[in-house]
């Protein structure tokens, strides 16, 4: 299980690096999907199959689809790739990278000496245990998250609202060529 953990972690880091450095937005998103799946394998190797499955279903399977959807609609051409490339000039990223690297050194050092590293037992945590924890000690957090999501849902459906009556809209559609993706996007 330790080999699986380190391999998946390596894939996650390399893929995330390519997300930042890639100039084509859709290809960068593909790397981000791979990165999320690698994180799912990391969860799995740590003995949390439920979290791994949710990571793929929610992040890779739903949220990233919307990202790809939007980028696809924007129809970015070679101009954007050029712009991306100009943003990747060394004078922009060298400073922050050195500082981030320093923080990484501190983190690795403290792990090395603080004894924070446990071994990976590969013991599995079942979905039932996760549920018991969620609706036991962490009930308040779950309820708060639920309320936040409900508020977001209401806001989204309000923004995506169509005031025109159905019949009138159907008749106008052929004249105006209203984008078909509009109302579905709001409801989704």
């Amino acid at each position, binding site marked *: 299980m330790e080999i699986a953990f380190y391999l998946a972690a390596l894939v996650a880091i390399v893929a995330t690096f390519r997300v930042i450095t890639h100039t084509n937005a*859709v290809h960068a998103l593909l790397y981000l999907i791979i990165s999320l799946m690698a994180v799912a394998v990391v969860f799995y190797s740590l003995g949390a199959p439920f979290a791994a*499955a949710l990571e793929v279903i929610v992040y890779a399977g*739903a949220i990233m*689809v919307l990202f*790809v959807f939007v980028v696809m609609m924007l129809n970015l051409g070679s101009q954007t790739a050029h712009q991306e490339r100009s943003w990747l000039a060394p004078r922009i990223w060298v400073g922050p990278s050195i500082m981030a690297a320093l923080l990484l050194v501190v983190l690795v050092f403290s792990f090395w000496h603080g004894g924070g590293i446990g071994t990976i037992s590969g013991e599995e945590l079942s*979905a039932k245990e996760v549920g018991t924890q969620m609706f036991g000690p962490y009930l308040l957090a779950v309820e708060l998250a639920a309320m936040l999501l409900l508020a977001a849902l209401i806001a989204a459906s309000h923004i995506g609202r169509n005031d025109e009556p159905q019949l009138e809209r159907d008749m106008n559609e052929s004249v105006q060529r209203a984008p078909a*993706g509009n109302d579905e996007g709001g409801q989704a």
Partner: protein
Amino acid sequence: MSWMSTDVLLAITVGVLKAIVILLAAVLSGAFLTVIERRLLGLWQDRYGPNRVGIFGSGQLIADMIKIFFKEDWIPPFADRKLFVLAPAIAFASLLLSFLVIPITPGWGVADLNIGILFFFAMAGINVYAVLFGGYASANKYALIGAMRASAQTLSYEVFIGLSLMGVVAMTGSFNMRDIVNGQEGLWYIVPQFFGFLTFLIAGVAVTHRAPFDQPEAEQEIADGYHVEYSSMKFGMFFIGEYVGIVLVSALLTTLFMGGWHGPLLPPIVWFLLKTSFFVMLFVLARAALPRPRYDRVMQFGWKFCLPLTLINLLVTGVVVLLTA
């Protein structure tokens, strides 16, 4: 390899061989279904269908394969080459991987995962990218519209494909497919979970983009949608991937709602195959009988009818499970 005794090695070899047999059976049944569907459609529409090659047209698949292999494998010059090649592979592989969790008989089945059903949801989620990348990489307006429709439709129906099965999970108390089949020893879940069954059936058809939910590839409006630029074996993978999807959803319906391998008299494998073939034929019959609804109606049906239905079903199931526990 001293830590591996001969018993362990033998168990691994048998397990791998079984997995390969299941894989080949899934692919072959998907491939043969392309012909069987046309024959069945012919039967129900009072005509012959393809019956020229071999006995009763049994050799039609070989003829089709030869034809599809010898077509020019063309990548349009304006396409995004990497994604264009990747998309059919995702389409084929992600659905095929889901066969991993299906228990066929008490002794047969590839993996006995704790997260069972969730693995299928994950793979169905990955499957969206095949359509999305295929449509984007083709750099074709029809393909793009098809990809848009497909991803919006799949996302909407995935919301309640998950919820429709939670009733089954609540009744069994486990995500594990074997536990679910064993839980149906006395009564198949199609009876207490009838609305879960209906919504899963509808969502399963929608997720595999089959008629009447085939708006993403509607020939009349958008000329086959996301795979309009594909030819030869790349198209073949999309095509057979769709049929593998049908077999997969049928097998899932069998496992989750129709008691899997359980049944009187006949051996388990026969029951499993019989029930799965029944659902496959239902898929074909739906294509033969139902016209394609308008796209926005499909979306409204999903959000305004199926989603509330699954939520109410889950609520009632939860109350019943709590009261009887």
